[in-house]
């Protein structure tokens, strides 16, 4: 049964913290486990709600007397707000509350600034907010806010921010952070190399563009407040709202049943939530504050652009001798927090290499703050590293797959311990390349200007392992149905369904005997943020633990009910069976639970700790085939084959959706997506879904997800790891490498936009190469 230990720790400042170790020992579901539900394809539990439009998102909350709110944003990338006057706005009929620097409470935000700060550090920074009876009146009122600015010099990119004499965006300058890592001797490694790669590669700023914008609906009742928030972390919203408003956590209730996309950007709490709460307090009415698309584009996160100078060395047989990378990434105007963008990580771990040096510098710029975007850092690094590896393979005359396998490792070299699944990546290489037909000759179109090529890229990902704490409750009702309750959230990934499957599996129930509850801090036990691809691996074991205890109690009750020894009893398909007795003599669970009514079986499961002697990672490989029209520069992705190791596959249906979705986002990152900032004004020119081009249905080729599905028995008792972020990581380099294979042009900058491709092909034509 479960264990619970607490240990006192005292910091240097005398602050006492208690660290808790807990968990329920469970034997892992190993490869031989006879699972009946886990591993079978299931449609989503919330499917009907989502296809009928009845699923309630934060944007859909409609309360009596509800107001709508909006935010006035800075038109300058860097300015001092010298005056703000909301008198006229407040006087407009239909306006019920305003807030700005003039009257906002003193609430700290970001590193060294305030909720409403006199210094505005990006075009889009919050200046004032209004709550009114409808959205049209909100817009009218915002136009009536008088704001005067003293523009300051600004820097919108890495080069400008690091230039001598650049305007300091924060006290202490524009270097936000510097992290270095070194093993071996890269210079010696490069000297020992027969071939080298030395290039600067860049990746662009990408915007998450969740279709449901960030925002919330807030209603006060006395001193307590309820927040319906579009968030990846209801408990973090609760903690932050309480802290910023000086409330106790129990005074804040956060609800999120459905969310229209987050991709990392909703894993932290942004200003508008607290602004909405303040407007609701001032107006005495519920307030809904959802960002418009412009605000969504500007102020609530982006994938940081990077500039990476990469040096690689290898001997003639393909053995890597050195990896040396110097990374600069523009984190925007503030350190927003959340999952870090660890661009250096991939270089340290993907390939066996004795000599590795990484340097990662975060740079402040006068642009919207960056925040985790689906595999932050790894997506950016994979483009550079896997481009470099492809180039080395070409130089060596080696198959790009063979070069990668030559440098295979089953150890996490940065942690100096083995991976929990040392053969995970190898399985991905095998599955992806076999399904793709890697190495087979591809058929070229008859027209000489249409050229096809193939590319491959690999990755590992630091996430997907899950961590404590995380809890779940199981309640067996008199009618024999189970309620599964947890404070996690389904961010669109299918966790509701997958976790219900884990519960039903462990209980021995059918899936429709399980009702799943999540997304409410008042009604469920704590669960952490849904980020790092961790939810299934964090909450799955907690649910298994709670269900295992419930099942043990159920069988004990059944033993009394049936007057049979408990050792002879089991539960399957919601029926209690006695060993050796015929199937049709099985007893419905309800017979037992009903007979003990109103007593009920109610248990809690806690996520135990992770093993300390292995590194739990996830892996993947993708192969892409593309066609390039050398006349028009049009790149057409013909197919992508993906193989990802996420341990045991709980629900193949939703795993497939995660993979095709990640690859789809990867195609956008590879070809079309890029935030554009005007250098003269610092204004984002495509803060919309017209000129920021996410892929359409017509941009997406056949995508095949090849299941790897090796349970990771060392990772956790479900054997499952996360799949949320990884499928996006290797897509762009696989495509870029395929483009090189097709036309012999190497791209070192993302995206491979039409203009870049046409320019490169035209330049080659001018050099007399065949078109």
């Amino acid at each position: 049964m479960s264990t619970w230990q607490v240990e006192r720790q005292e910091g240097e400042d005398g602050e006492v913290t208690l660290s808790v170790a807990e968990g329920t020992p469970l034997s892992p579901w190993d490869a031989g486990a006879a699972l009946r539900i886990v591993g079978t394809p299931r449609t989503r539990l919330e499917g009907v709600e989502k296809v009928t439009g009845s699923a309630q998102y934060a944007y859909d909350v409609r309360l009596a007397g509800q107001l709508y709110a909006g935010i006035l944003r800075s038109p300058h990338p860097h300015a001092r707000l010298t005056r703000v006057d909301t008198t006229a706005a407040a006087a407009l009929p239909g306006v019920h509350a305003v807030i700005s620097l003039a009257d906002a409470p003193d609430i700290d935000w970001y590193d060294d600034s305030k909720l409403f700060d006199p210094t505005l550090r990006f075009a889009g920074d919050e200046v004032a907010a209004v709550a009114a009876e409808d959205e049209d009146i909100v817009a009218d009122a915002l136009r009536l806010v008088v704001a005067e600015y003293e523009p300051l010099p600004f820097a919108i990119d890495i080069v400008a921010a690091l230039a001598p004499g650049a305007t300091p965006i924060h006290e202490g300058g524009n270097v936000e952070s510097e992290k270095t890592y070194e093993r071996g001797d890269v210079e010696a490694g490069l000297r020992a190399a027969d071939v080298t790669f030395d290039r600067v590669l860049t990746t662009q700023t990408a915007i998450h563009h969740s279709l449901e914008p960030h925002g919330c609906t807030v209603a006060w009742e006395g001193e307590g407040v309820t927040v319906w928030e579009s968030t990846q972390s209801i408990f973090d919203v609760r903690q932050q709202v309480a802290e910023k408003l000086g409330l106790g956590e129990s005074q804040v209730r956060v609800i999120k049943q459905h969310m229209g996309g987050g991709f990392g950007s909703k894993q932290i709490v942004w200003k508008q939530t607290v602004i909405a709460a303040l407007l609701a307090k001032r107006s005495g009415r519920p307030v809904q504050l959802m960002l418009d698309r412009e605000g969504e584009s500007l102020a609530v996160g982006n994938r940081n652009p990077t500039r990476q100078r990469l040096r690689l060395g290898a001997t003639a047989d393909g053995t890597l001798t050195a990896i040396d990378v110097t990374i600069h990434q523009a984190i925007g105007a503030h350190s927003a927090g959340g999952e870090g963008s660890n661009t250096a990580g991939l270089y340290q771990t993907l390939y066996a290499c004795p000599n590795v040096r990484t340097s990662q510098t975060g740079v402040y710029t006068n642009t919207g703050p960056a925040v985790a975007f689906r595999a932050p850092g790894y997506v950016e690094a994979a483009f550079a590293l896997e481009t470099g590896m492809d180039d080395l393979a070409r130089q060596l005359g080696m198959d790009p797959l063979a070069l990668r396998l030559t440098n295979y490792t089953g150890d996490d070299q940065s942690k100096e311990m083995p991976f929990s699944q040392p053969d995970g990546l190898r399985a991905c290489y095998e599955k992806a390349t076999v399904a793709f037909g890697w190495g087979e000759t591809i058929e070229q179109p008859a027209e000489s200007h249409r050229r096809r090529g193939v590319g491959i890229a690999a990755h590992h990902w630091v996430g997907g392992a899950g961590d404590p704490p995380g809890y779940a409750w199981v309640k067996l009702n008199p009618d024999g149905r189970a309620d599964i309750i947890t404070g996690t959230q389904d961010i669109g990934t299918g966790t509701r369904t997958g976790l219900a499957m884990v519960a039903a599996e462990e209980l021995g129930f059918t899936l429709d005997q399980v009702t799943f509850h999540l997304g409410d801090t008042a009604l469920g036990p704590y669960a952490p943020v849904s980020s790092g691809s961790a939810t299934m691996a964090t909450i799955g074991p907690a649910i298994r633990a709670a269900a295992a205890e419930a099942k043990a109690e159920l069988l004990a009750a059944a033993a009394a009910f049936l007057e049979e020894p408990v050792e002879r009893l089991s539960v399957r398909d919601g029926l209690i069976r006695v060993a050796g007795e015929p199937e049709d003599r099985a007893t419905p669970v309800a017979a037992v639970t009903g007979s003990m009514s109103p007593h009920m079986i109610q248990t809690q499961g806690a996520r135990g700790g992770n093993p300390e002697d292995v590194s739990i990672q996830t892996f993947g490989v993708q192969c892409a085939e593309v066609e390039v029209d050398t006349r028009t520069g049009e790149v057409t992705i013909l197919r992508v084959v993906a193989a990802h190791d996420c341990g045991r596959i709980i629900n193949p249906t939703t795993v497939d959706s995660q993979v095709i979705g990640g690859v789809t986002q990867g195609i956008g990152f590879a070809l079309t997506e890029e935030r554009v900032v005007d250098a003269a004004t610092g204004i984002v020119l495509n803060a919309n879904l017209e000129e920021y081009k996410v892929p359409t249905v017509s941009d997406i080729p056949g995508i095949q997800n090849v299941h790897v599905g090796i349970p990771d028995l060392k990772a956790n008792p479900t054997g499952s790891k996360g799949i949320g972020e990884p499928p996006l990581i290797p897509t762009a380099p696989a495509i870029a490498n395929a483009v090189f294979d097709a036309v012999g042009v190497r791209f070192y900058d993302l995206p491979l936009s039409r203009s870049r491709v046409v320019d490169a092909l035209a330049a080659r034509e001018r050099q007399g190469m065949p078109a």
Partner: protein
Amino acid sequence: MTMRTFAYAQPESLADVIAALGAAPSRDAVRPLAGGTDLLTLMKGDIVAPDRLLDLKRLTGLDDTVEIRDNELVLGALTTLTAIETGSLVGEHCPALAKAASLAATPQLRNRATLGGNLLQRPRCWYFREHLIPCWLKGGDACPAREGENGLHALFADSPCVAVHPSDLATVLLAMDATVTVRGDAGERAIAAGDFFVQPDEGRRRENTLGGDEVVLSVAIPLIPGRTSAYHKAMDRKAWAFALVSAACSFRLDGGVMRDVRVVLGGVAPIPWRSTAAEAALDGERPGADVFARAAAAALAGAEPLRHNGYKVHLARNLVIEALEEVTRA
């Protein structure tokens, strides 16, 4: 992204609309409303703020009829892009126009957007569409795109403005020698497409010569026996994008040689850009790779690329060749 207040009226006749437009204090104060797919985005973006909108959809005198009249294919101004894309008369007599419609926007927009509105739509230039940034076309002093992010901008701008015309249909219509019939206070007039679209200048910061009191009634395409046409469009994604560059070409073969040749480029100028130099290079010649290449080079000969749009020269050249090849095959 919310509109300012305005009044909305449904005039009963076209004459009422023309009178109201004529009496308006400024061109932007009163605007006709058809599909609204461009106008409403301009209003939401705070680029224009009319006091009054006049619905054109429920009055007599304006329609969505497509018919053959006096050896011309005539399309009413309210004809939707969907009707142009799928209608049998357009498909039979001007497949390039149907193709242009099919490559424009999305089904939802094509169901709503009208031919008249499509010709009159304003540029997509991101400086023009950003109300925070002054630009010449919006009444400012200078064009910020000239030195700014101009990858989507013009190669041929005989104007302070370097935005490009966004219409796919207009590019084809110019290649088909279409005329635009308009009506205003002074009555009806038919304007050749080449005179309808004119580069903006100091006196007229617009892309066309439609009078302030005028409404587009219809578009007529002369039916020239044996003439075939093609439209090719390059986008930065596979669907739902304005043209980076497009090319509409048409000619007829007369004894094996090309006659009545038209070569028009989209996405390279503030208006659909006809290249008479390319046409001259083709006229009287037999279709073939060499002459197509010469014509394509001629079409781009005077191009003045900005800092970020040099790729359009290469792209436009090859789209002209592709379009000419397709006309030849047709």
